[in-house]
């Protein structure tokens, strides 16, 4: 029997079970994990007062330490929310870009971010909610509603990738105009608070946001594993994918829906943080050198980008704190242009 080597893959066998491991993606994931761990430690150590890594570890492990307040109460919740929101955004971007077969598709493009923003800003500006506990729920609801609207409008006997993106852009533009109306017409003081939220901020994040986001992510794991299998054929044209036995409509529905839910929840926890969902999968696919967008690496990249951006946002102009969305935007915009200019990947 002749054999064939699949370049770049390692086959893991255990009895009748066999798994294909993309070596470079595994390596990238390992590297990302290490970088993420280092960034998390740095975020916990650095601030107005510098805390030694040893002391940080004590606090994280729950041992008594003089830095309990600064590290445990101020920095840790913020890092945790950043981690979770980044993970959700990275995964959401990877799923939506896979469905849309377009590197420029992301929750920002398919309406989710602007849905969350318009809802929160509208409710804040007209004083329906105050800027405390209800905002995350409003954001999740708004993001979901906009994402589903785009989905319904794009559905015509199946989800068409290009229709999905184009309708998403249309809905986003409409919602961003609506947001401007709310900002000018609404109560001035409240509108100011809304503007801060709009840039995406981890300032004042607490564990109440982290809790439900962690549950959503946990629930997303089996769906993501299922999606990862389907990715092997979804990256072909539709006819070939169906010919290989893929239930295209169902898989697209599942992936886009999960993407919308994750992005909405991330927006609920951290505000609509710009560009993370767009660039994380594109960075990940280049790191992993894989054919399809690697879901796990994208999630890790998203987490790394958000935590790192938040660290920069806190320290760059200290003592002034920037919202994390400003930093991701400042890095993201040039990156987007670079991508548009030189990338040949995907697009059609």
């Amino acid at each position, binding site marked *: 029997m002749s054999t064939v080597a699949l370049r770049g893959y390692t086959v893991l066998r255990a009895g009748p079970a066999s798994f294909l491991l993309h070596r470079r993606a595994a390596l990238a994931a390992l590297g990302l994990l290490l970088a993420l761990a280092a960034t998390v430690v740095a975020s916990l150590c650095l601030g107005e007062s510098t805390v030694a890594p040893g002391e940080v570890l004590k606090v994280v492990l729950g041992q008594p330490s003089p830095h309990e307040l600064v590290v445990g109460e101020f920095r840790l919740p913020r890092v945790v929310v950043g981690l979770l929101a980044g993970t959700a955004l990275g995964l959401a971007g990877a799923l939506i870009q896979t469905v849309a077969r377009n590197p420029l598709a992301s929750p920002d493009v398919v309406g989710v971010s602007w849905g969350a923003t318009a809802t929160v800003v509208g409710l804040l500006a007209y004083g329906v909610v105050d800027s405390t506990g209800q905002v995350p729920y409003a954001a999740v609801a708004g993001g979901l509603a906009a994402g589903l609207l785009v989905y319904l409008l794009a559905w015509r006997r199946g989800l068409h990738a290009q229709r999905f993106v184009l309708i998403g852009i249309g809905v986003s533009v409409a919602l961003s105009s609506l947001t401007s109306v709310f900002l000018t017409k609404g109560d001035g003081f409240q509108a100011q608070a809304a503007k801060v939220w709009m840039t995406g901020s981890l300032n004042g994040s607490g564990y109440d946001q982290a809790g439900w986001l962690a549950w959503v992510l946990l629930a997303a794991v089996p769906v993501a594993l299922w999606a990862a299998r389907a990715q092997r054929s979804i990256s072909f*044209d539709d006819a070939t994918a*169906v*010919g*290989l036995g893929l239930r295209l409509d169902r898989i697209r529905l599942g992936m886009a829906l999960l993407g919308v839910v994750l992005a909405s929840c991330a927006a609920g926890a951290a505000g609509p943080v710009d560009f993370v969902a767009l660039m994380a999968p594109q960075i990940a696919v280049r790191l992993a050198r894989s054919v399809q967008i690697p879901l796990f690496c994208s999630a890790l990249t998203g987490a790394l980008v958000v935590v790192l951006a938040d660290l920069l946002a806190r320290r760059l102009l200290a003592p002034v704190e920037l919202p994390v969305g400003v930093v991701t935007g400042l890095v993201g915009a040039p990156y987007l242009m670079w991508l548009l200019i030189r990338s040949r990947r995907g697009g059609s």
Partner: protein
Amino acid sequence: MLPDTESAEPVQRVSHRLEARDLTLAYEARTVAEGLDLRIPDGRVTVIVGPNACGKSTLLRALGRLLKPVRGAVLLDGEELARVPTKRIARRIGLLPQSPSAPEGIAVADLVSRGRQPHQSWWQQWSAEDEAAVAEALERTSTAELAERGVDELSGGQRQRVWIAMALAQGTDILLLDEPTTFLDIAHQVEVLDLVRRLNVERGRTVVAVLHDLNQAARYADHLVAMKDGRIVAQGPPAEVVTAELVREVFGLESVVVPDPVTGTPLVVPGAPWAATVDA
């Protein structure tokens, strides 16, 4: 039912695993084909021909469950195709669309290995069977030496062989090919069609192909189906079907049909050339 036109081999009864019954096909509101009855002979090469927009590719899409019929049904082993889970169909029917697109940067072996998808699950991602099927597919299509290359770097003919290799790796008894020779020069057209013929003869695969070129169809088909305006005009062995009369009826072209000097199959030579028309 259609009259049995398998008279070329009077003794041997041919079975039909794939058939279409009273098929009406439409895109949105536009009806493309109506009342099609077709039985695909097992282990033979069936070629569907006809002028542009006659519905031949649409028929092939319906046979491959890419298009749901408005009326009638496609039957596979007696079951209505629309009711069979798509993954189970994928273990019996392999299909190569007219212009398939591969993910960018994919290597040949990786692409061909994805033909094994319908046989895999999340915990069986690469069995010994998968490996053997892919190795055999690469060998049969003479693409083994390209295995490490990127699909993007290949010539049109090589790329088409790689796609056929993927369909082969799928390990199905039935192969549907939609204009597999489009965009290829004549040498590569012959190469691809010879490959298809060899797969049929050596491996007993049932092939259904849509072809543009009537002479190639006559040369490679066991069973020829001629379509016009969404209807089947004639079907049977090429020697019986391809006549000057049929060419006039289906293509609206005056022609002389002579035996192909190499294979003896009907060869259509367009009559009444432009210059002759002017003289007259």
